[in-house]
């Protein structure tokens, strides 16, 4: 059992949870969290926001019963963590852009800390959060509120573009990546998917992702996929 160090409300419905314990992981990997008994039934997959010597941090948006229970946690309360799971963002060389939308900025902070000098693009539909925390690690920080942050990103200027955000943003990033490659860019676009999960370890197949080479698992083959591998359905 892990213990809550802090659970701070950043803005409407967005919380930053810090948990004590020896937890690690790579950029883009996730943990399965639960802070309740048998109900709700499933644990909640949350990506690593950052790792400290004495613990680990998650950023989450309250969207249902599970995250609502997480939001009620106070320092000292126990919760269980399983992980780290999944295949995250790759260790890369070259010029990198991090593009996050809403709560999708969560895993990108851990990336920013490991990839100093990258350009960071953060988009929000309403009040932004955590943007100042990103600034020290960014060569350039672009924050967009109410618009489409992807419009600010010139994919051809980068070797790698890491994207995490809502589904429409991932689809748009994929199209933008295709267009960039067609125009001669060598940009590789990496998408972090947010599918519903049950087991989190690759056994139950509820998080299946349609890929060019067949069905893959978001929890173990992903959550990060090369954009050209993924086949989005309408």
């Amino acid at each position, binding site marked *: 059992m892990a213990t809550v160090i802090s659970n701070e409300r950043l803005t409407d419905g967005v919380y930053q949870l810090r948990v004590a314990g020896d937890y690690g992981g790579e950029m883009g990997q996730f943990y399965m969290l*639960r802070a309740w008994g*048998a109900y709700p039934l499933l*644990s909640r997959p949350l990506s690593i926001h950052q790792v400290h010597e004495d613990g680990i941090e998650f950023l989450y948006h309250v969207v249902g*019963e599970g995250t609502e229970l997480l939001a009620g946690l106070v320092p000292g309360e126990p919760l269980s963590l399983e992980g780290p799971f999944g295949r995250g963002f790759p260790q890369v060389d070259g010029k990198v852009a991090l593009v996050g939308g809403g709560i999708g900025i969560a895993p990108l902070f851990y990336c920013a800390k490991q990839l100093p000098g990258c350009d960071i693009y953060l988009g929000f539909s309403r009040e932004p959060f955590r943007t100042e925390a990103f600034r020290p690690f960014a060569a350039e920080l672009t924050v967009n509120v109410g618009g489409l942050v992807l419009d600010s990103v010139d994919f051809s200027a980068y070797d790698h573009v890491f994207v995490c955000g809502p589904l429409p943003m991932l689809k748009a990033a994929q199209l933008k990546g295709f267009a960039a490659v067609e125009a001669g860019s060598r940009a590789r676009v990496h998408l972090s998917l947010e599918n519903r*999960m049950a087991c989190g370890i690759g*056994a139950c*197949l509820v998080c299946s992702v349609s890929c060019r080479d067949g069905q893959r698992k978001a929890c173990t083959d992903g959550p990060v996929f090369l954009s050209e591998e993924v086949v989005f359905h309408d």
Partner: protein
Amino acid sequence: MIKLSSEIAGVHFKNPVVMASGTFGFGREYGKLYDVSCLGGISGKGLTLNPKAGNSGIRVYETASGMLNSVGLENPGIAAFLEKECAYWETLDTARIVNLGGGTLEDYVLGAEMIQEDADKRLRTGKTAVDMIELNISCPNVKEGGIAFGVKTCAAQEVVRAVRKAVKLPLAVKLSPNAEDIAEMAQMCQEEGADAVSLINTISGMKIDVRRRRSVFDNLYAGLSGPAVKPVALRMVHQVAKRVKIPVIGMGGITSALDILEFIMAGAAVVQVGTYNFLNLRAGSTLVEELEHLMEAENIRSLDEIRGII
């Protein structure tokens, strides 16, 4: 010394805790978290003759004390299973059960024959990877076959008879709670030579997204599992156990050793554990340990003392 073991058609179960099909993959993933050879058995992910991509759209939705799933039998196909997973199954010291699904009668039979042939071939080199076939005539999430065979006894009879003829391996038939008469279905299986029946598969259910004015699931309906279904499962296991002489493998919403004893008292030979694996990734080892302690506390020396006493 507490006796946890039992036998079904000559297959040894070291304890009654068997992992249910569809929740446990082929065991490898959980095998990284604990030694799955501590289990009574493993029923692998449901297989069909040809690979299946499964259903599109959302595949899981939580409900009060349960969950709906609409995976739709995504699986690598029998040939890929035999080639890629059986070598791992050879190394496991637990009852290994292949869950066989199908679309048509011919698919079921061809699939069953492939599994039997592979088992025969392995046996000639002194190896075994599969101890039993669990025939799935009851998946609610595939349009053809599956539940269509699982609802009407006469439709199921054809499949059970054909697969029984095709295999020598011990054969269990997995029954649907959506069957018109589940006890009659079980009796038919017994008459057709099945070695056991397992029940219940998920209960067909539904969830509507009011704002979008549509079902949450592309496949419209989905299968309900978890603690919510346990009382129904227990009642059906009891009814079936009263009707047939062949062993009953009981399942539905088990999350504790106490639940296991309920199913044994209702008449189950062994039980299967499914959805609980998602709540507790070490469910198998937790339950085996819990069960021994509970039996000691309840002064039960063998499951035979309490099996079917209700």
